[in-house]
């Protein structure tokens, strides 16, 4: 069964550094998403992406964040200058149609 994959599984970075989290969505899916879960808190929506542009974003998704689909298979989340409070599990998801989303295993980001 096709799955969403994410790399790396764990990323440690220093405050102020840029990080890029990578995702490979399911191949025939058209909608792509990033969510995050800070330890002990809810899973929170960050952004959705369709037809090579952002379709929705949350208040969390400020100018420090960006997304890109650099080729036909990858979907990336970039954080330009990481803060301590960006430490979280970041989940990528994709869907063939809107709504029914399939999640990847997540990348644990630790900012020190």
């Amino acid at each position: 069964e096709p799955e969403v994959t994410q790399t790396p599984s764990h990323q440690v970075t220093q405050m102020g550094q840029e990080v890029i989290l990578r995702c490979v969505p399911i191949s025939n899916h058209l909608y792509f998403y990033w969510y995050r879960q800070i330890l002990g808190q809810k899973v929170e929506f960050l952004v959705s992406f369709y037809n090579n542009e952002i379709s929705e974003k949350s208040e969390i998704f400020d100018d420090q964040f960006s997304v890109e689909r650099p080729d036909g298979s990858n979907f990336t989340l970039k954080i330009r200058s990481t803060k301590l409070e960006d430490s979280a599990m970041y989940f990528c998801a994709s869907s063939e149609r809107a709504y029914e989303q399939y999640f990847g295993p997540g990348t644990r980001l630790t900012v020190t």
Partner: protein
Amino acid sequence: AQSVSQHNHHVILSEAASLELGCNYSYGGTVNLFWYVQYPGQHLQLLLKYFSGDPLVKGIKGFEAEFIKSKFSFNLRKPSVQWSDTAEYFCAVTLGGFQKLVFGTGTRLLVSP
């Protein structure tokens, strides 16, 4: 603000017991409703979904959920749990025409053999 509430944060059951996990949402418009499960060390998996039609939906592994519009609820049920159902269960909704999932806090279920 729109929100999703899961009332039980931790549930402990013995095998063969019945399960019901509560989920309520606060939004007056059209919703799509989901339950996701996260087994230990694994990623979020879609357990079942409701878009429209029969308010009683059946999912994988013997789970079902009932949408009660008047109560803004979408409770998850299973008549007889197994040890392998030990996991964290998340209720989530999409609101109106938007795609973003709004998640509840999750319920950790521990099933003892």
